[in-house]
């Protein structure tokens, strides 16, 4: 039995925010001075420091074995970046410990330390050294790096003359040729054009699956995670919520406990600052019964109830539908369909209803986000993944043939089949 490559034990990291406090982030001597004075004069305010403490990570533990490809997911502020920074030695944990075995390389960004004045060749050496490669190692990999980046003709041109695509390719290429036993990657795939992203994904797959390396991969892109990772860790507000098979974790990520009843009631009280306050959201089947499981019928009915507190003009209210991988299938608001909805809405209670045709849905889990905005100007409310529902039509071909469903949605085209001659 071999020891895990990375063991994370009760890892915690505390940040102190807000008031600048000596030892944590005073920006100027004045802050420091202020703080000391306040400490002398006003003890109560000093106690309030507790409110400024944020635990970016709290007692997180899991192990990563040799050859594992682990995805780390979570919403913004869940602690993903903090975890990566600790694993990359950029910052220290406040409590707990991590034990790593083997050569670790981490990639929090592509192109770190690139200098625009220098040529492609010079930057390869510089960036390689920053990422921890030896000069001799870069010498041997140089041609491969240039080839992968497709910048052979421009290798002696200053990087400032590169297109952004070339720059990214070169930056990624240097990083992709690191050969550590453990690779920690952050969101690098979120950049560049589609072609480039495909290439990156291909390289990532190659590194993790064919070369048997251990990879820790953090991303917002659930689709990429689903493709690459066998296991996942889901972070929520600094805690590790689930660690397990990717499918289960993604389901847990997309299905917070609150989204399983078919109805959502906003428990946050309306504040006077809100122009529009969301009251409730409901998902109903064809018989107008509120339910999270819909198995038949022509449409799924969605009802959004809200209160306009101050007269608004130019606003729209709408929904966004995501599939189980978190991919947005459609976003649509009332005013997108009929411009008259942009007209003034006076104070009062409103109900928006719409029907999602089931003919376009494949069997599976779906997630509903409700929003209201004045386009290009401001958000009035935004509740992400507020409801989840499952659509299961037993007459559906997916079920009948047990075929692996391809595509995000289902369309039944009208087919004409004629025999020609």
């Amino acid at each position: 039995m071999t020891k895990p490559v990375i063991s994370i034990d009760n890892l915690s990291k505390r940040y102190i925010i807000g008031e600048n406090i000596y030892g944590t982030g005073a920006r100027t001597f004045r802050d420091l001075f202020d703080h000391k004075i306040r400490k002398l004069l006003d003890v109560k305010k000093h106690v309030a420091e507790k409110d400024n403490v944020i635990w970016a990570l709290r007692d997180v533990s899991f192990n990563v074995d040799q050859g594992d490809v682990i995805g780390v997911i979570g919403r913004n502020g869940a602690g993903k970046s903090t975890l990566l920074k600790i694993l990359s030695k950029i910052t220290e944990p406040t409590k707990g410990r991590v034990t790593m075995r083997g050569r670790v390389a981490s990639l929090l960004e592509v192109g770190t330390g690139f200098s625009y004045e220098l040529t492609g060749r010079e930057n390869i050496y510089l960036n390689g050294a920053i990422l921890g490669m030896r000069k001799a190692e870069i010498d041997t990999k140089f041609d491969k790096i240039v080839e992968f980046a497709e910048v052979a003709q421009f290798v002696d041109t200053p990087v400032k003359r590169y297109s952004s695509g070339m720059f990214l390719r070169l930056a990624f290429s240097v990083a992709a040729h690191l050969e550590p036993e453990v690779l920690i990657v952050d969101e690098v795939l979120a950049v560049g054009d589609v072609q480039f992203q495909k290439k990156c994904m291909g390289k990532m797959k190659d590194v993790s699956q064919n070369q048997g390396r251990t990879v820790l991969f953090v991303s917002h892109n659930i689709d990429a995670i689903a493709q690459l990772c066998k296991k996942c860790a889901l972070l929520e507000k600094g805690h590790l919520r689930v660690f397990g098979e990717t499918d289960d974790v993604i389901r847990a990520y997309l299905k917070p406990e609150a989204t399983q009843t078919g109805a959502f009631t906003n428990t946050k009280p309306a504040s006077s600052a809100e122009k529009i306050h969301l009251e409730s959201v409901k998902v109903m089947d064809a018989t107008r019964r509120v339910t999270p499981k819909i198995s038949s019928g022509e449409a799924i009915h969605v009802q959004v109830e809200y209160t306009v507190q101050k007269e608004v003009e130019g606003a729209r209210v709408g929904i966004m539908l995501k599939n189980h991988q978190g991919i947005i299938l459609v976003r649509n608001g009332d005013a997108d369909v009929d411009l008259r909805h942009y007209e003034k809405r006076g104070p009062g209670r409103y109900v928006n209803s719409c029907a999602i045709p089931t003919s376009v849905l494949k069997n599976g889990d779906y997630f509903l986000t409700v929003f209201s905005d004045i386009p290009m100007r401001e958000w009035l409310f935004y509740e992400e993944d507020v409801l989840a529902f499952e659509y299961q039509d037993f007459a559906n071909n997916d079920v009948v043939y047990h075929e692996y469903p391809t595509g995000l949605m289902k369309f039944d085209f009208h087919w004409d089949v004629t025999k020609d001659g």
Partner: protein
Amino acid sequence: MDANRELILEPSPGYVAVNLRELWDYRELLYFLIWRDVKVRYKQTVLGAGWAIARPVVSMVVLTFIFNRLAGFSSDGVPYALFTLCGILAWNFFSEGLSGASQSLIVNTNLISKVYFPRLIVPAAAVLRGLVDLGIAFLVYILFMIYYQFFPGVQILALPLALLWGIIAALGVGLWFSAFGVKYRDIAQAFPFVVQLLFWVTPVGYSSDKVPAKWEVLYWLNPMTGVVEMFRYSLLGVAHLPVNLLILSAAVSVIAFVSGVYNFRRMEKEFADVI
């Protein structure tokens, strides 16, 4: 970067020893950072290396005029221009190394917040890259030496020691400034003022023997006093070098360096969080 090495990450105590082995592992990065800065600097400026020549020469002319012509200071038979230039070489190396080191962490924010490497490398690279400028300026010095027909004697053997001392002094003070500069941005404001003050209490344009005896001890607390006098000793053979004061100045440099390194190590864990 040993494959089987076990790496443990956990909260460290306040003061951490310097990991020399790790520094040695990253020596190539040090080299590349110096190389980058030198290259970028000379690529960006029109005059390129011309700056490394023009600055000391112009300073030499001005200082010689002020101290020699206006104030009437003499320099024990050494051509005054050469005497000043020698001080300027040492001073420029120090002041540029010091200001480079002080700003180095802020300038390299994105390296600090995205990649791990021993942070000491950043200010060290900032000081050491000054050796390139010093080398170029030294060529000018050689020209003046030939012009005045004034050549160094066997004392030149002390030059490496003077240089090492200069590095230790610049890095020692620079480490303090750079570590605090990450947290307190006012350092950047106060800094030019501090350097300017130091310039006047360093024997660049005049000899330290002009300083009245009752102020001597205070004057020699400045690490650069020793460095400049050592430069003069090795290049010109004449210098005001009272041994006890020389030791004092050297001791201050070493203390600044050692404490600077330890303070830097203590503060470096927070760099990524506050930068």
